[in-house]
């Protein structure tokens, strides 16, 4: 089976659906001739033409707004917002229009737009190229919010997202585009080549939306996480020697609460980890739901590991990023509760 990094997997996903469905069009800043600043659309314009892979003006609100109109006219647009940090000029179009068009017209109109956007830090991006705004979108009814953590899931979930008639905000954790990252910036980068989830079929397949993945089975503690921190959790659990069950939720909304509850009811301990800021973060929703479903089986308060509640500082990136040290400290603290 071919080995792909996440960029290649995303490109392959786009290629597969564009080949299958002539209604799929890609639009965004630098996505066409150049192939995207992260190269996710490289070669697609040459293959599918300028009418299907469209370089857009620098106006995220326009990109989303035009994509909505294209979707209403029968196309299946995939819009790229170059960085998740740039998504806010398109926020009203996403929240007030894209998310609610089906609802307000009782299904007479809908627009199956997928918005791809790279998120997260760890690439020296500073406070305008590092944010993880997934909780903001998860809060909006009518939007599906997805964040894959590896090439296999990225391609399968992207195909599911594009083929879905619901609007999807598809977050791509850019720190792990080229390889899994264990949260220790001192160690040499590794590629996806040796990772089982770097094995990606060439053709069409899907990973279902709304289904979490148990990355590692364990008995002592459940770590609920997604995106880059999946790999940090795996490394931190291994180093502490705690037999942790690690769950990658993959779809943030709608949430697969059943898989999470089953795990926490089994282990009795739950730690939630995400890179986004803690206050009002998606971890708060996860904690509330797990508490409700698993209260009588909990042996310790639910813990949260998250980015600090500050903007993402350029020079102190590794003090900000919830890396291996913080993850290990969190695990040890949870296990010390008798």
């Amino acid at each position: 089976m071919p080995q792909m990094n996440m960029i290649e997997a995303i490109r392959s996903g786009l290629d597969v659906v564009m080949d299958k469905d002539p209604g799929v069009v890609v639009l965004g800043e630098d996505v066409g001739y150049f192939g995207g600043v992260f190269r996710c659309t490289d070669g697609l314009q040459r293959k599918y033409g300028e009418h299907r892979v469209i370089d857009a003006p620098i106006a995220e609100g326009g990109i989303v707004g035009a994509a909505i109109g294209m979707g209403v006219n029968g196309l299946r647009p995939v819009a790229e917002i170059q960085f998740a940090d740039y998504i806010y000029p398109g926020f009203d179009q996403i929240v007030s229009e894209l998310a609610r068009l089906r609802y307000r017209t009782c299904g007479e109109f809908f627009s199956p737009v997928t918005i791809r956007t790279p998120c997260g830090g760890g690439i020296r991006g500073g406070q305008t190229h590092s944010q993880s705004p997934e909780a903001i979108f998860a809060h909006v009814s009518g939007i599906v919010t997805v964040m894959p953590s590896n090439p296999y899931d990225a391609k399968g979930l992207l195909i599911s997202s594009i083929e879905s008639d619901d609007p999807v905000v598809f977050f791509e954790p850019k720190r792990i585009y080229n390889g899994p990252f264990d949260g220790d910036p001192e160690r040499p980068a590794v590629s996806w080549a040796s990772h089982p989830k770097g094995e990606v079929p060439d053709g069409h397949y899907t990973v279902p939306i709304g289904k979490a993945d148990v990355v590692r089975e364990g008995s002592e503690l459940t770590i609920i996480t997604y995106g880059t921190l999946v790999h940090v959790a795996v490394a931190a659990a291994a180093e502490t020697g705690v037999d942790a069950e690690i769950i990658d939720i993959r779809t943030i909304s709608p949430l697969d609460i059943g898989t999470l509850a089953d795990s926490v009811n089994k282990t009795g301990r739950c730690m939630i980890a995400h890179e986004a800021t803690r206050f009002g973060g998606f971890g708060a929703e996860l904690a509330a739901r797990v508490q409700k479903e698993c209260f009588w089986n909990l042996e310790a308060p639910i813990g949260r590991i998250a980015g600090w509640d500050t903007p993402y500082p350029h020079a102190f990136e590794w003090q900000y990023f919830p890396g291996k040290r913080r993850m290990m400290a969190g695990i040890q603290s949870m296990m010390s509760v008798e």
Partner: protein
Amino acid sequence: MNKKSRLHIPRPSARPGDKPDFGYLDLSPAGSVDKPSIDSRTRDIEYLSSGLVRVLDDDHAAIGPWVPDLDAGKLQIALRWMMLNRVFDKRMWQIQRQGRISFYMEAAGEEAVSIAQGMALRPGDMCFPSYRNQGLYMYRGVKLVDMMCQCLSNTRDMCKGRQLPIMYHSAKANMFSISGNLGTQYPHAVGWAMASAIKGEDHIAATWVGDGATAEADFHHAITFAAVYQAPVILNIVNNQWAISTFQGFAGGERRPFAARGLGLGIPGIRVDGNDLLAVYSTTLWAADRARRGGGPTMIELVTYRGGAHSTSDDPTKYRPKDEWSEFPLGDPIERLKQHLIAEGHWSDARHEQLEEELKAEVLAAWKEAQQYGTMTEGPFLDPSTMFDDVYAETPHHLESQRRRMIKVEGANGGGDT
């Protein structure tokens, strides 16, 4: 020049108690603005954005290069639609005042916009309307009773009680849904038009926004995209002088006409007498032909006057002179078409009165029918558990669970009378 910088606060020409003053409005005599070929370059037709295209002159004659090919029969039909729009609005306004619907917006004084533009477009063209385009919904085949049921949020409401009154939609009529957030439909129209061109179809899109909402970012995003991709779209700006209480100067209309907004992007703009049905029809047809034949977008500023309040929620006598509408130099679109038809020998006061009575009866009959499907106080009522439908294509488990909870706690009909 002053020696210091200064902050300019736009002020309308008249406030309550002042004599109405439309001196700020540049007018051209009917028939005086040339009609260029549709393949003209934008730079060669900039005059269209500063002049005022008018067909009907002060003696009610149709004159000049923009006289459209509309016979008396078609004009009588146009008059009927404008009158229906107004009769409908008056009835619905009254119904809101009686507390039988929560909200309403009338189009008094602006009826020519919806009707003339509706006539100039083809059924396959897609409309992305603003909230004062109810005439377009009517013209394109949405039944009065269905519009009333929407306003009532009753069991036949096309929106199933999810939208404020007047926020209609009709996929069958190629009428997009009204949002409630202003200007958001502009980029949708451009994207729709781009898709039409991508698919190689000759359907065009048309969209409407008020003078006030041209200040929204969506307007600027949309016209940039329209210009960049030469999308087949008509970008209408209905300049009715007022955005609730702020006059058009607060949207930047003091120094250049709204029709000129697109010139910097190479989009031709036409400033047209929005109360002259013939001129509106003619300019729209020009823009539609241009779009359909690859000429790209056209911006049309329809100069008109908001005859009524912004909505049932504001009192215009608090911010503008009471008699401003009667002093508006472009008059009333219904009256002007009526006088034109009378002058041509194709209409009379008696026929006009008779038609108005017929339309009142038609609207009243629709209202009687609409109430049979439920009112705000009398059943049948909508099932509140449908509020969980259509959030997603398939209802996810957490919404099904909330639906069950809602029925359990609020009762099967949401706590209403059982």
